[in-house]
């Protein structure tokens, strides 16, 4: 039977619970305040570096072709995936929020499908965008197809696009 330190026993639960709550609280408040300060400072060093991540894609990755290019089902499926996984940070209309940059900007819309796929796969971890390789490769291409469709939509409709998500029947 294992024994514990006698002096540690009386206070251990209180000390551990307090330490846990303090650390969790500091980390939560810290990240939230950082986000708020970034907004107050005019944001956009962070966003610039998010866009700069597009240019960091290796040439081989940038040149990859979208296997679902022009697939209307892929646009709809990508819209659904975007709403589920991306809209919390990038906004429901991809116009950006305090947490993530607009995906309607030229830097994104002019990017090659391969570069978008590469950023989606690798994230921009140092700037808060997680890796999305947990989505299977075809689903990531569906999101890329949707993102590319935003440009066409905005050109043809001359208005902010909406994610073409179908409702539950």
């Amino acid at each position: 039977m294992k024994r514990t330190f006698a002096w540690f026993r009386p206070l251990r639960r209180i000390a551990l619970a307090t330490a846990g709550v303090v650390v969790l609280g500091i980390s939560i408040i810290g990240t939230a305040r950082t986000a708020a300060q970034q907004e107050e400072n005019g944001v956009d060093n962070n966003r610039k570096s998010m866009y700069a991540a597009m240019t960091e894609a290796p040439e081989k990755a940038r040149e990859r072709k979208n296997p679902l290019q022009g697939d209307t089902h892929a646009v709809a499926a990508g819209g659904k995936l975007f709403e589920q996984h991306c809209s919390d940070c990038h906004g429901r209309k991809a116009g950006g929020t305090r947490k993530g940059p607009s995906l309607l900007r030229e830097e994104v819309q002019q990017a090659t499908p391969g570069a978008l796929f590469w950023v989606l796969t690798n994230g921009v971890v140092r700037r808060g965008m997680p890796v999305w390789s947990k989505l299977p490769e075809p689903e990531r291409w569906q999101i890329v197809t949707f993102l590319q469709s935003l440009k066409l939509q905005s050109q043809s409709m001359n208005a902010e696009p909406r994610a073409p998500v179908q409702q539950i029947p």
Partner: protein
Amino acid sequence: MAARVVPERIRKTFPSTIFASLIFSLLLCASSLVFAQESPYIVTYDHYLEEPGSLEVEYFSTFGTQRGGNDFHGFWAEFEYGVTAWWTTELYVSGQTTFNDSTIFTGDRWENRFRLLQREHIVNPVLYIEFENTNGADKILKEVEGHDVESDYAESNAVLRKEHDHELEMKLLLSSTFKGWNVALNPIATKNLLPSEPWEFAYAIGASRPLALKASPNRCNFCPENFIAGVEMYGGLGDAQSFGLHDTSHYLAPVVAWNLPSDWTLRFSSGFGLNDNSHRLLLRWGLSREFSGFGEMVGRLFGGRP
């Protein structure tokens, strides 16, 4: 006789039911919800961390058979918070009901996972560090370490809870995703903080894949892409004084996760003991929900900008 059995059953299951209900009701209205794409593993970890600012609340149950003692129901709750895209921190609280015995609180854990590389590679390493404050009656079997064997759990709760463990547990989470398949390997090293206790070793390995790799255009509960199936295997590898497979227990467990569009994830696992030292069956299930923007919400309470 029957009149006595029913209240007894209710009394035994009541604490865990209350435990789960409280956790979810506290947070249900707190934040916006996001669709989770959770892996089906219950013991093994892949390299994916919680999204920054999101809180995931999880409840898990383990029903285990016990030879030479009473079957048990271990349960635990996890509060997993994404501090950054490379750091996730998590608090656990656990308890258990041993049938024909009692229901008790068995301890708490504080876990941290750190992503070591910025980008995706063929194999992606994540460092896992956990401090455990548990008693000997802990039966969640989230890790099977060292020379842990079934007979260790046969004693009554009154006896087992006298043992107190303060342990440091470290894992290297190695995970790779290719063509929809995820393969994860977790070497584990645990040290009881008593100087006399040796390092203990263990492993967990898992493989999983969604049932479909492409999303359908419609929102649907039963689309194949919402289901991820796989298998995990875990067990002890002895300790620093007697490393190896002798006097260790091992389990093989098919696992499945159902990621619902309504933001809930359900997981099921039936673990089968692979040798005579193992419990014959560990039946597990879990329910989780992710709350996006939780960090912002708390930050606003402390003066952050709305």
